[in-house]
């Protein structure tokens, strides 16, 4: 259960030491792991990007090399057809046809057809032998025009559907045409024509398809310098607008690695140049391909971070618990002590906590000792106070009594003097009571009677005294000399100044009610005014000028010091009617043990009663 104090502490922003240690360790752990995770991710990403780029670069380089070799091979075939067949043999000779056919047969895996056209576009020879299409006007076809316009070099066309022959297979062939103007021998007449070698597109398409099929998200395409697409793995989608590829910027780049904007993000392109044609092989690392692999990496790093966090949080908790446990135990024992218990102060844990425990334990022990000392001293002080109060009886009264005896002796009233001396002796015996404070009520009553007998002698029996005491109360404890000062007051303020005819009377009653004893002293004297009555039990400065000098207040204080606050005196008075003082004390049977107990620890008892209140 959360105490009010805990709640208050929480609202004030105070936390337990374990929470603070745990929070600090967790914060440090989280920050460290997140930073490490970010750095790790960043590093991995860079490495993956670099790996992808270097892999693509290597693929582009090797593919360019393969295509270059294929084109070099084709050029060799082309040159062989030109220099070793066309320029070597007469086109009308059988050997020409044989060599032409042989050249095709040897290279038919790469070559779709070889054809030689005359100046007017008329077919001179072709392999494989096939029927020429009626509507195929070669002079208007780009490969022918290019060969005518640049006679020195071999011309490479873009891939296109061959439109020359009909072989009855109802098929079309995609080819790349190599063409060049060539010199021909037709009998003795030298002439010129155009040699056409149509290479199968599959020569380069197979290579490109192979690298595209084996690439992981990266794709490769080929375009010419103007960005016209020669091969693209998604050519059909491109031509239908189902996929977009802007090849123009990449087509203008030299060989190397570039970053290109693509649909709001960037993609990396690797450009390689293909020899003889000026075509570009472009490898593209799309952003979404990078994202997919980065996502994978991100998830793995997230999982690693989370698992690490879980483990470290567990570790942090154990550490914080281990560190805070002795502190908490010490705190708990101190709190229990503060709550009034007397537990042993916790001493354990690290050296510092042990030292702290020892110090607290020692401090509390010292406090205990000091407290006991203070209590002891207080007891002593109370005892001495009581003694002082009791000792206040003697001088005045003794002086007055002795004066009365002197007067009686002088007046030769020896019997009366003897009585006085006898009563005085009894009174002094009870007063002394071997130095005891607690006496039986019977002794106190004896003391009161002696006192009243003395006073009546002094006052020449101008008033009467009557004791109405229940016998059962006589063996109960009472603080000595508590009735006598009240009687003294009753005489001086009540009946002392009354004439004999006024029938002055003091009645002492004693009875037990429940667990308490009530002893009342009632007179029919002049009574007390209201203001005197009010200050009677409170004004300690008001000391009687008469009698023994022991005021009612002294009696009240002594009873309360001995028995507690709920006990003491109560006074009722009516002017010209009389006064009634009631002594209220607990009914404690007078035994040696009880008397000794009361003598020893009156103040402690009093304190306990206060605490109970």
């Amino acid at each position, binding site marked *: 259960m959360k105490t009010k104090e805990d709640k208050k502490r929480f609202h004030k922003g105070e936390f*337990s030491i*374990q*929470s603070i240690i*745990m929070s600090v360790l967790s914060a440090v752990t989280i920050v460290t792991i997140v930073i490490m995770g970010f750095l790790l991710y960043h590093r991995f990403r860079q490495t993956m990007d670099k790996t992808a780029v270097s892999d693509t670069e290597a693929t582009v380089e090797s593919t360019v090399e393969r295509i270059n070799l294929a084109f070099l091979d084709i050029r060799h075939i082309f040159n062989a057809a030109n220099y070793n067949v066309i320029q070597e043999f007469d086109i009308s000779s059988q050997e020409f046809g044989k060599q032409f056919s042989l050249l095709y047969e040897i290279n038919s895996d790469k070559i779709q057809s070889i054809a030689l056209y005359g100046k007017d576009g008329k077919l001179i020879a072709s392999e494989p032998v096939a029927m020429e*299409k*009626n*509507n195929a006007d070669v002079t208007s076809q780009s490969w022918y025009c290019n060969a005518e316009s640049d006679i020195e070099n071999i011309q490479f066309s873009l891939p*296109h*559907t061959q*439109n020359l022959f*009909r072989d009855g297979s*109802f*098929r*079309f062939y*995609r080819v790349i045409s190599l063409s060049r103007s060539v010199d021909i021998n037709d009998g003795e007449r030298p002439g010129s024509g155009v040699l056409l070698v149509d290479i199968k597109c599959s020569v380069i398409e197979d290579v490109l398809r192979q690298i595209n099929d084996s690439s992981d998200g990266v794709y490769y395409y080929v375009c010419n310098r103007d960005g016209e697409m020669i091969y693209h793995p*998604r*050519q*059909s*989608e491109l*031509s*239908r607008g*189902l996929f977009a590829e802007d090849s123009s910027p990449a087509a203008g780049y030299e060989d190397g690695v570039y970053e290109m904007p693509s649909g709001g993000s960037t993609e990396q392109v690797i450009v390689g140049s293909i020899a003889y044609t000026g075509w570009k092989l472009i490898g593209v690392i799309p952003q979404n391909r990078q994202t*997919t692999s980065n*996502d*994978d990496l991100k*998830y*793995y790093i*997230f*999982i690693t971070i*989370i*698992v690490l*966090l*879980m483990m470290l*949080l*567990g570790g942090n*908790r154990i550490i914080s618990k281990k560190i805070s446990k002795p502190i*908490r135990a010490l705190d708990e024992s101190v709190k229990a002590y503060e709550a009034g218990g007397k537990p042993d102060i916790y001493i354990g844990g690290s050296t510092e906590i042990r030292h702290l425990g020892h110090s607290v334990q020692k401090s509390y022990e010292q406090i205990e000792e000091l407290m006991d000392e203070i209590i002891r001293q207080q007891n002593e002080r109370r005892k001495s106070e009581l003694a002082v109060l009791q000792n206040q009886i003697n001088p005045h009264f003794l002086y007055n009594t002795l004066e009365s005896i002197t007067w009686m002796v002088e007046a030769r009233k020896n019997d009366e003097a003897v009585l006085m001396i006898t009563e005085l002796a009894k009174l002094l015996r009870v007063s002394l009571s071997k130095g005891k404070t607690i006496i039986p009520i019977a002794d106190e009553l004896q003391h009161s009677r002696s006192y009243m007998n003395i006073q009546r002698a002094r006052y020449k029996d101008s008033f009467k005294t009557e004791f109405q005491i229940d016998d059962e109360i006589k063996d109960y404890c009472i603080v000595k000399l508590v009735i006598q000062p009240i009687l003294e007051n009753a005489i001086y303020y009540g009946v002392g100044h009354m004439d004999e005819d006024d029938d002055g009377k003091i009645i002492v009653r004693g009875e037990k009610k429940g667990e308490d004893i009530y002893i009342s002293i009632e007179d029919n004297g002049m009574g007390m005014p209201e203001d005197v009555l009010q200050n009677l039990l409170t004004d300690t400065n008001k000391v009687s000028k008469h009698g023994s000098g022991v005021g009612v207040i002294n009696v009240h204080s002594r009873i309360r010091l001995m028995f507690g606050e709920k006990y003491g005196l109560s006074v009722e008075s009516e002017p010209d009617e009389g006064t009634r003082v009631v002594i209220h004390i607990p009914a404690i049977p007078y035994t040696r043990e009880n008397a000794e107990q009361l003598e020893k620890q009156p103040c402690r008892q009093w304190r306990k009663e206060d605490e109970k209140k």
Partner: protein
Amino acid sequence: MRKNKITFLVMELLLLILALFFVWKIFNQNVPEKRVAVVLPEAGDNRWDALIKGMKQSAKNNHIHLIICNTDEMESAEVEQEIIQEQRNNQIDAFLVWPASGSETEEMLKNECADVPVILIVENVYNEDEQEFSTFSEIGPDYYEMGALLARELGEDASKIGIVAGREESEASTSAVRGFSDTLEQMKGEIAWCYYQEEDCNVLDEIRARAPVDHLVVLDSRTLDRIGEQADNGELKNIRIFGIGYSVKSIAMLDYGKIDGLVAPDGYEIGYKSVEEMAKKLQHRFYKTKSVKTTIKMIRSDDLFQDEDIERFLYSYE
């Protein structure tokens, strides 16, 4: 202390949930591809080359596993039903179906594919009531428009026209014939006869048996290829042949001069878009598939190598 313990346990639990989420994300990337069966008549026939190429490319883009059913001719809904039932036992997630001719095909598809998505390809299911529309999405060309295109190609001077269409209970055939007839009617052309093919018939014999015509319009790709091969022979020699063709052979015959005009649907686009649409459906359960009318192209022998679009068509067949 209790509060600390609860906070700690809650944090550990949250982290565990988070870790499980990322583990799920990793494994979720490796979910097996959805399996889509393609039901086409004579699936190995070269008229479907472009269509299957388009399907394969789209399947690759959309991570779909295509199963192209090995089929012969699909004469009726029963034959198609058997193939579909066979594939249902093969844990198929969706079907791309060329509907067999006949009015019962729609009902059969509704019954057999009640709990799997189906998209019709190439043509729609046949319905006797022309006004009644199929409940299935269809991705294919507009056969009515193809028929109309052919009619316009024949022009005003066309007279004595014979029509060879596919099966009578086929949406493609009836739409193409209707498109052709409606357009020709506006151009004052005359249809001498219209023949719907039947099971085990010899088309050439059927043509021979009918009145001679100047123009033959063949609205079925397979029949066009067959007639084109015989174009130089006998009674077909002096007839101008026009038609609807899916295959590269049809285009080659146009190039060879065996036929005079050809309307070609873009098979690649049909294949590509059908798989794409199905992929959307499989990714989002509540996605409603849409019908798409794909591109059609009028091809003439004169501009076969001048038109860049034709090059695109030819490339698709490779």
